[in-house]
């Protein structure tokens, strides 16, 4: 079977762009990706795209060209971007297509995401009495993790400081100013133990990636990172997820553990082989827990790793080199693809100001509601 490569990548900077709709930003990203690869929209054989709050992705077609291309809208919660990538990967892997695009964009209103109990299969009283908030879930998951594995509040702060430092070096990031540890720690508490600097915000942005078979890539005279492994997994019994009025007393693993293991197996690599990683940091605690869930350390090692700067630029395993969700915000449809975009930049040696030396394998993991995780492993 053919290998799948990412031969073009485009992004519309994340953050707030009042003069552009989500769709505008998605179209912008597609045009950037096409220009990056030197291709025309008419060359594209298939597209998978998604947006959670900014309309159907295939609304981009009249602007890009009504070429009759196969276009499938993807809607898979926070893993929408990761699911589009996986769908594109399979389309080429199957041999049916050899050149296509995956795109994601979004534009959310300010403040916490809206929650509808019935849409999540939950009783109304759960939302009515003030328990249906993603922020509460993240706070309670890290609170318990900190208690079990000896993680300090300072470590939560260090993750945020690193994010804003990396964001200050990244043209597509939203938050471009470094923030000091004291400011992060003394920020307004949102949901204890997490301050406002430790949470990402809903935002806007668009990302597009062009995928090609090995053969097509050579024909076109192009190059780009190879997709070594990609997997999406949903919550197994006993995992702790958003919007759960109750949990099993027998605890299980997180969906990230399943997706991560599947992607490593597919790629035939181990966590220790990874040179740079983008992992879901909805809030500081999520990055800490995901370090372990993705196999980069044992539970509790994060305390030392963050103190020693292991995951900072220049460390042994730089994590969230573009500032992650904390510095870029989280436009749901685009967020997972933003991680892959950043890895493409790192693996092609184009991450100016934040380049990881000798980056060979890039790992990305997006996680979110209603309890699913998507992992991709790219090779330079």
């Amino acid at each position: 079977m053919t290998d799948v490569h990412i031969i073009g990548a485009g992004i519309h900077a994340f953050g707030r762009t009042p003069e552009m709709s989500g769709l505008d930003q998605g179209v912008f990203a597609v045009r950037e990706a096409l220009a990056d690869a030197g291709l025309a929209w008419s060359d594209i054989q298939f597209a998978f795209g998604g947006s959670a709050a900014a309309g159907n992705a295939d609304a981009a077609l009249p602007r890009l060209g009504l070429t009759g291309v196969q276009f499938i809208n993807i809607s898979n919660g926070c893993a929408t971007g990761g699911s589009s990538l996986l769908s594109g990967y399979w389309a080429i892997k199957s041999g049916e297509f050899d050149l296509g695009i995956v795109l994601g964009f979004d534009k959310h209103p300010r403040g916490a995401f809206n929650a509808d109990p019935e849409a999540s299969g939950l009783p109304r009283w759960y939302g009515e009495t003030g328990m249906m908030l993603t922020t509460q879930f993240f706070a309670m998951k890290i609170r318990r993790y900190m208690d079990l594995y000896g993680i300090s509040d300072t470590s939560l702060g260090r993750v945020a400081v690193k994010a804003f430092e990396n964001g200050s070096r990244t043209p597509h990031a939203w938050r471009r100013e470094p923030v000091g540890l004291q400011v992060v720690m003394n920020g307004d508490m949102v949901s204890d133990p997490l301050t406002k600097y430790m949470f990402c915000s809903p935002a806007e942005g668009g990302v597009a990636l062009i995928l090609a078979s090995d053969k097509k890539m050579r024909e076109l005279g192009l190059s780009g990172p190879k997709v070594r492994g990609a997997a999406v997994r949903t919550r197994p019994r006993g995992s702790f997820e958003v919007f759960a009025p109750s949990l099993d007393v027998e605890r299980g693993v997180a969906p990230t553990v399943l997706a991560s293991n599947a992607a490593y197996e597919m790629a035939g690599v181990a966590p220790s082989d990874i040179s740079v990683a983008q992992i879901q940091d909805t809030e500081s605690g999520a990055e800490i827990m995901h370090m372990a869930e993705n196999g980069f350390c044992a539970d509790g090692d994060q305390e030392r790793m963050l103190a020693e700067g292991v995951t900072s630029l220049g460390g042994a395993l730089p994590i969230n080199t573009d500032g992650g969700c904390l510095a870029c915000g989280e436009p749901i449809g685009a967020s997972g693809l933003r991680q892959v975009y950043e890895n493409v930049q790192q693996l092609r040696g184009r991450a100016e100001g934040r380049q990881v030396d000798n980056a060979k394998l890039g790992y990305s993991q997006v996680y979110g509601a209603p309890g699913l995780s998507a992992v991709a492993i790219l090779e330079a």
Partner: protein
Amino acid sequence: MTVAVAEGLFVEKPDGPHLIGGRRKADGEMKFPMPTGPEAALYDPVELAAEGKLWSYTVQRFRPKTPPYIGADDDKTFKPFTVGYVEFPGQVICEGRILVEDSSILKIGLPMRVALETFPTSTRGEVTTYAFRPA
């Protein structure tokens, strides 16, 4: 006593209120609340223990969005409240509001009891909901 926020969430007994969960007939998996609608036929209702242990907690510092939140407060009058999970050993871990003056006294593992709380709403007047308090 005011009307309950929903039917079948809890029952009052001489030793205090108890939550009502559901045990799936097929495999014994327990849930709270007891499922309703067609799913209910697959579960037996189970009265949970009156006391459990704090599993995790946080403080809700901003007023949740309406909808779905129906608290009678507004952004100006909102007072932060504590929420958390309590593990009823051998049964299930349940989420609820926590009645505590000072959340800094909470610790994972702290014994907690089911309590009832009057919850003023903007749509239905005062309702009674379940909550937890340190035992």
